[in-house]
């Protein structure tokens, strides 16, 4: 009995120590961002603030607010569109398989693993040609296109769990392709849409490479602005920390309130890759 308890104690000890290490960065972000300027020094990094001061949030917010809005304008349409297209593709590739559908799916899926550097130069030339370079709609287009593989994969796996007999029964009742999609598949897809939307929202919000190469200055999403903020010498690092928290807040909130769906997305995008 004693040995059993010691085992349990050690397990808790390891978990607690690691949990503390995992939370340290968050501690530093919060503590530093709440410090008044005269307490921000390298020596006092771990010390709690003597008084709580929101001035770094004010400064970070003034700097980042326009870019924060850019990210909203980017992430909402891009998430909705890529989820919708993913649902359409997933529906066809799971319930209306034709000869070669699986090979086609693999070809779509490959697009999710490529380093985006390998399409970046033509992509920018193309966006310049159609006048979408350095615009938020341009970034929306990019995220919709390169989101297709993952959203298709997620919806295809999701729809694989809807029994084929339901589709067959609807067909016998005279429902056609679109009717089945609208009246059977879509109503059963709410969870699927939540999982995919959360996944796309998080990824697009956090994305950096497209954002930094396709947009400049006023049109940049939040992550580029945060990187610029931390790269500049004049900005104190309490402001950087406040900025990091502001930039991370939307995805953190989604994780805190809808974490279950976030994890489902994570697994859906990988287990049966």
């Amino acid at each position, binding site marked *: 009995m004693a040995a059993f308890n010691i085992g349990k104690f050690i397990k*808790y000890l*390891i*978990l607690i120590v690691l*949990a503390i290490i*995992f939370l*340290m*960065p968050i501690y*530093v972000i919060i503590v530093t961002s709440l410090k008044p300027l005269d307490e921000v020094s390298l020596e006092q*990094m771990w010390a709690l603030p003597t008084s709580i001061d929101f001035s770094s949030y004010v400064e970070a917010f003034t700097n980042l607010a326009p870019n924060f809005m850019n990210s909203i304008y980017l992430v909402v349409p891009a998430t909705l569109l890529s989820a919708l297209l993913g649902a359409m*593709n997933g529906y*066809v590739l799971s319930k*209306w398989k*034709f*000869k070669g559908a699986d*090979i*086609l799916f*693999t070809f*779509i899926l*490959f*697009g999710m*693993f*490529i*380093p*985006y*550097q*390998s*399409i*970046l*130069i*033509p*992509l920018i030339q193309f966006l310049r040609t159609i006048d979408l370079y350095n615009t938020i709609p341009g970034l929306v287009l990019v995220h919709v*296109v*390169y989101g*297709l*593989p993952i959203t298709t994969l997620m919806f295809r796996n999701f729809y694989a769990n809807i029994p084929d007999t339901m589709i067959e029964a609807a067909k016998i009742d005279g429902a*056609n*392709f*679109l009717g089945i999609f609208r009246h059977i598949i879509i109503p059963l897809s709410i969870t699927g849409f939540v999982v995919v939307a959360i996944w796309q929202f998080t990824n697009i919000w*956090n994305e*950096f*490479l497209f954002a930094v*190469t396709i947009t400049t200055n006023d049109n940049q999403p939040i992550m580029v602005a*945060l*990187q610029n903020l*931390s790269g500049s010498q004049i900005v104190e690092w309490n402001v*950087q*920390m406040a900025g*990091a928290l502001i930039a*991370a807040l939307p*995805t*953190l909130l989604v*994780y805190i309130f809808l*974490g279950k769906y*976030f994890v489902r997305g*994570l*697994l859906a995008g*990988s*287990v*049966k*890759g």
Partner: protein
Amino acid sequence: MAENTQTKRKKRFTKDQWTAIAFLIPSIILILVFVYGFIGWTGYVSLSNWNTLVPDFSFAGLKNYIYLFNDFRFQADLRNTLFFTILFIGFVIILGMGLAILIDQKLKGESIFRNIFLFPMALSFIVTGVVWQWLLNPSTGFNQFLSMFGIEPKWYTDTNILAGFEWGSIEFGLPVAIIAVVIAAVWQMTGFSLAMYLAGLRGIPDELREAARMDGASEFQVYRKVVLPMLLPITMSVIIIMAHISLKIFDLIYAMTGSGANFVTDVPGVYMFETTFRGNYYANGAAIAIIMLLLVAVFIVPYLWNSRKGDN
């Protein structure tokens, strides 16, 4: 059998089937152009002389590739990527699997622990980079604790190469600075493998472990002989997914350290970005991108091929 497939085939090209294909067509065209077409175009650029602001598509042969493989910076990048990938994948697997096994022991508060280890997954590599840049800054952060024990690592500012020897134009060995970047990346991505392993462990029926215990296996043997082999497919998936993240990593390093002195923390993603978009060496940048794509393809193509076969 033959008749059956024939009737099926007849049924296939109904109006519905055409609508189904029409549903897919926009996506197929987009993927064809934006993925395959653009990769081809990048390949073409990588064989051209376009190394100025003005596009120049005259044929250069393999000149850009030869330049890269003789280039100090690119050789350093390949070395860094190799060590980063090995360390990153190794730690993500060991930590993720270890934590998953611990959390799976039906301890109290397991969901709290799970949520703590998973939350960095919701953050951007940029946020991670900005924060860890301070935590691993040699004059503050963790060094304030470590200095109490008389250790003061130089983290990402360290230019030493461990076990280094001359190879090509670089010193080949483990760049100490890369360890700092690995720590930040492991912090961010361990949650991924943890979630995968937890899902895997939940899928192993308790009776199986029970049966092994009945046969007199110790707890350690149960894990080694029963659980670990059943987690092997998951380990393969984690390796593939982490490898492709690691081979194309850009934002974390760009935000946290940049190239570093002597390119000790440089990677192909950063080189490609800087040489193309800051230096206008488009053909060189395209060549780096194609090499990155080939490296990723080595892992991904067999993986996709296998999962397709497993599907049927």
